[in-house]
């Protein structure tokens, strides 16, 4: 079962200032969408709107399946990781506890995922005391542990070293291959090229360009996206 979402004239305004939209678009399929755009262009806001944690001021957003089901099947990795004030293990277990899984099943999944994200040694440590990169890994593990149908990631590798980045990328590609729809923002163009099946380029809160990854990276149609890819000034 694939989930699709369609946005119609969605806009977000805060304090009278428009920070996103109006955006009209569809996201379907099982691809790996990368959101690109300069700082403050609205990537985080766009991801949060899709996920339903950011209130929209205008327009409508609709999932192809009933809303409660849609929400249950999603997970999100926030730009600055949110740690529960508990141990690493308890953070990983939390989403499973919400689903009322049995204790042994939870323990098994937790140790499995701690392994995958490389935090097996840290299970008893308070999550709030982890290093920046460790927090990001934990947040990614906690999002993947429920095996979501749709996964949103907001610059998940910003604080990761080379090895961790590659390991996380492998995890994400693996999940994607198993059918998880991934929508992710990043400033790391190399990463974007490695992962994306399609790209969405945001500028000033609007979708400026959208297309298949190959095409976008080879020959961006807009001037601004081309400049952005070159790391140039984008106004």
């Amino acid at each position: 079962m694939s989930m699709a979402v369609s946005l119609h004239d969605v806009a977000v305004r805060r304090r009278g200032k428009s920070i996103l939209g109006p955006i009209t678009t569809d996201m379907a399929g099982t691809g790996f969408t990368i959101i690109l755009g300069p700082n403050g262009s609205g990537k985080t806001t766009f991801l949060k709107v899709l996920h339903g944690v950011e209130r929209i001021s205008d327009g409508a957003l609709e999932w192809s399946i009933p809303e409660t089901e849609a929400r249950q099947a999603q997970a999100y990795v926030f730009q600055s990781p949110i740690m529960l004030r508990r141990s690493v293990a308890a953070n990983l277990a939390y989403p499973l506890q919400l689903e009322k899984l049995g204790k042994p099943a939870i323990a098994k999944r937790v140790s499995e995922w701690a392994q995958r994200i490389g935090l097996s040694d840290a299970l008893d440590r308070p999550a709030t005391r982890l290093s920046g990169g460790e927090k990001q890994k934990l947040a990614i593990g906690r999002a993947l542990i429920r095996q979501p149908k749709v996964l949103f990631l907001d610059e998940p590798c910003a604080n990761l070293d080379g090895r961790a980045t590659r390991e996380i990328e492998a995890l994400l590609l693996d999940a994607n291959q198993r059918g998880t729809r991934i929508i992710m923002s990043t400033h790391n163009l190399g990463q974007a090229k490695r992962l994306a099946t399609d790209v969405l380029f945001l500028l000033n809160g609007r979708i400026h360009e959208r297309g298949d990854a190959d095409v976008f990276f080879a020959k961006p149609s807009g001037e601004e996206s081309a400049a952005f890819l070159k790391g140039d000034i984008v106004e």
Partner: protein
Amino acid sequence: MNDIWSGIEAAFWLVITLDADLVDITLRSLQVSLTALIIASAIALPFGTWLAIRRFRFRRAVIATLNALMGLPPVVVGLIVYLLLSRSGPFGVLGLLFTPTAMIIAQVIIITPLIASITHQAMRELWAEYHDLLISLNTSKSQRIATLIWDGRRTLLTAALAGFGRAIGEVGAIMIVGGNIDNATRVLTTAIALETGKGDFALALGLGFVLIALALLVNFAIHALSRTEREGRW
């Protein structure tokens, strides 16, 4: 000043000799206040937390009202409870007037708004931190409340202790609904009021110091217990 000294002396002798009356009213004080604290916390902690996570039309008005209710004059609470529980009142048949139960009811009414207000304030910060995550994980209202209370339990200590403090030191309401009946509803504060009325300030102060020592004891015990949890902030 002499009186204060003789108060301390009186407290000393009361405690040293383990005065039977003193033990009796002290235990009753503890029983009434701790019961009231438990009931009030069971109401106020979830309610205060709920207020922190819920946006609704009259939220600000509810919060302002809650804050105002912290100023409920104990005498008025005592009066209203008295009227409700009195023979001619709606709950008269229960025969609760002038029993410890009546005192507990009055104290619950007095401390619940206080605990709920402090809880609400403490939980707002934690909710701001957890908001996105808990919404994202599609938690139910009650799961959110439970998570916040659990992870914020250390900060909620102040709320509970403020409630306990207010309960253990309160006299106006329990005097009216309890009646300060010897061997039945006399507690430390009403005994203090009685000795003050008699002009026996030394004994009154002595009982007061016992009460303060009791409050200190309870607080240190709770702090020591919460310390056995591992150190540091989560």
